[in-house]
């Protein structure tokens, strides 16, 4: 069996979000539970139908145990691999294999974090993580991570190609314009390029507008086999392919700062899907930082290496532009609760179902979802999703 044999055989049949923005007084598990319920309701399924679970969390090494206990489920398939924020895209392939093999019938992929409003703050958590999972060859130099690692990537991209801070600002402004069309987005006030350029630097060449939000949020989606999906209440969105590539951990071990593992995951995913970039109606990519969007456009083949900057000029990826990217407003303007991979998947599903109201991409049949994980584009997971008529 090859990746190609799985093409379209598994579908996403339910999606849900909860606690996006600020979820005062709630815990990670509580909003995760709400999102899981919303996703199952959306599918017309119940918790008792769930016999497969994919989940991960930055704070708990054995997070699937917490979720199993909290939801009161007894899954036959559990996948808790944490490759960073790309995890909730990377969970798709193992879930596809398990579903296709008949090991289980309904897989719930879920995540929740109240990092923004939690009393146990970001500072304490990042200190605890540094203690438990040290980076001895970087820590003495105090990179302000993750921004500094992605800033090093952006600086190199700018040096090697004709990429400018204005190009990065185009990404942030496009994300904001999409967010203004999305009632669920956290940052919806107007933003222009000059404001981004004039803002205070965090880690050069990034200002706060080049960096993702710090919000609460939970997301869940439900996967099942295509034959079963046909009988459920919502129009299924088929997974034509999913592929993951992991190349390194730390930015100092990243071979070429201008090339991410999306180059590999994208090639594998497109080959299995039997489609190429020109066949794709939209990209939902993990924009942890503005540079991520440029890297994804290049590495996935939507433009040539080094041309990401010129690709996004003049609002090309904003509403009304030639290629819709991050139509929910992205991690930059919609929601970013630490690990964001499930949200890009959900936005692609909502778009392909035609549920996106003002921000709907008309007639969209195909979408690429591209997850990013780790402090330096360390892991990438790429999926090609499509409506049934593309099969």
């Amino acid at each position, binding site marked *: 069996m090859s990746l190609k044999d799985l093409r379209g055989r598994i579908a996403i049949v339910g999606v849900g979000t909860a606690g996006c923005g600020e979820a005062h007084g709630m815990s990670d598990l509580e909003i995760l539970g709400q999102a899981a319920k919303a996703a199952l309701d959306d599918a017309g399924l119940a918790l008792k139908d769930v016999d497969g679970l994919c989940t991960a969390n930055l704070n708990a090494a054995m997070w699937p145990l917490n979720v199993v206990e909290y939801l009161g489920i007894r899954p036959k398939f559990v996948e808790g691999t944490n490759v960073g924020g790309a995890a909730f895209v990377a969970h798709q392939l193992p879930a596809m294999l398990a579903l296709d093999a008949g090991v289980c019938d309904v897989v719930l992929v879920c995540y929740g974090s109240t990092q923004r409003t939690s009393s146990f703050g970001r500072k304490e958590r990042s200190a605890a993580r540094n203690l438990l999972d040290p980076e001895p060859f970087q820590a003495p130099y105090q990179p302000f991570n993750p921004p500094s690692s992605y800033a090093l990537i952006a600086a190199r991209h700018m*040096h090697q190609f004709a990429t400018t801070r204005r190009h990065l600002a185009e990404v942030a402004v496009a994300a904001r314009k999409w967010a203004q069309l999305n009632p669920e987005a956290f940052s919806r006030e107007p933003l222009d390029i000059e404001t981004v350029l004039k803002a205070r630097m965090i880690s050069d060449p990034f200002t706060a507008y080049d960096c993702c939000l710090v919000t609460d949020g939970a997301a869940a989606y439900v996967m099942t086999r295509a034959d079963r999906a046909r009988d459920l209440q919502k129009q299924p969105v088929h997974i034509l392919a999913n592929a993951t590539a992991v190349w390194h951990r730390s930015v*100092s071990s990243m071979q070429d700062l201008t090339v991410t593992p999306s180059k590999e995951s994208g090639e594998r995913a497109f080959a299995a899907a039997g489609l190429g970039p020109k066949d794709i109606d939209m990209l939902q990519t993990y924009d942890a930082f503005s540079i991520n969007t440029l890297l994804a456009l290049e590495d996935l083949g939507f433009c040539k290496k080094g041309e990401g900057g010129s690709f996004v000029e003049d609002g090309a990826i904003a509403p009304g532009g030639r290629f819709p990217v991050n139509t929910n407003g992205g991690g930059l303007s919609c929601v970013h609760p630490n690990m964001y991979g499930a949200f890009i998947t959900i936005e692609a599903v909502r778009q392909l179902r035609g549920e996106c109201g003002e921000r709907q991409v008309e007639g969209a049949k195909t979408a690429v979802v591209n997850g990013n994980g780790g402090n330096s584009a360390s892991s990438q997971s790429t999926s090609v999703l499509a409506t049934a008529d593309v099969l």
Partner: protein
Amino acid sequence: MQEDAKLGPEAHYQAQLNQGRFLIQRCSDCARHVFYPRVICPHCGGAALQWVEAGGAGMVYSTTTVRRKAEAGGDYDVSLIDLDEGVRMMSRVEGIAPTEVKIGMRVRARVIDQKGAGLVVFFAEDGK
């Protein structure tokens, strides 16, 4: 070096730095240099890694200025340095303003003491 013979590569590297010596590894199987120190060569999978003195010369591969309030110590440089041996490491360039550190700049290593531990930092060559 003999006294550290029982230490793993990571501890040995630090112990040598603490004595002012900057060592990296070289693989006897594939002849490539390795950083950070390991028990297995990430290029070829071999285990024949030997310690060699780092030449100390290198070039800034990328750089960022981390912005920090003046009362907390002010802005500082974080750079990735490509050593002439062909390995890359994170470090910082000292002796010039962090915003003056540029990609492509030639730099030279120096082992300093930071909070009681040896640490490799870099200074710009040609008097900059």
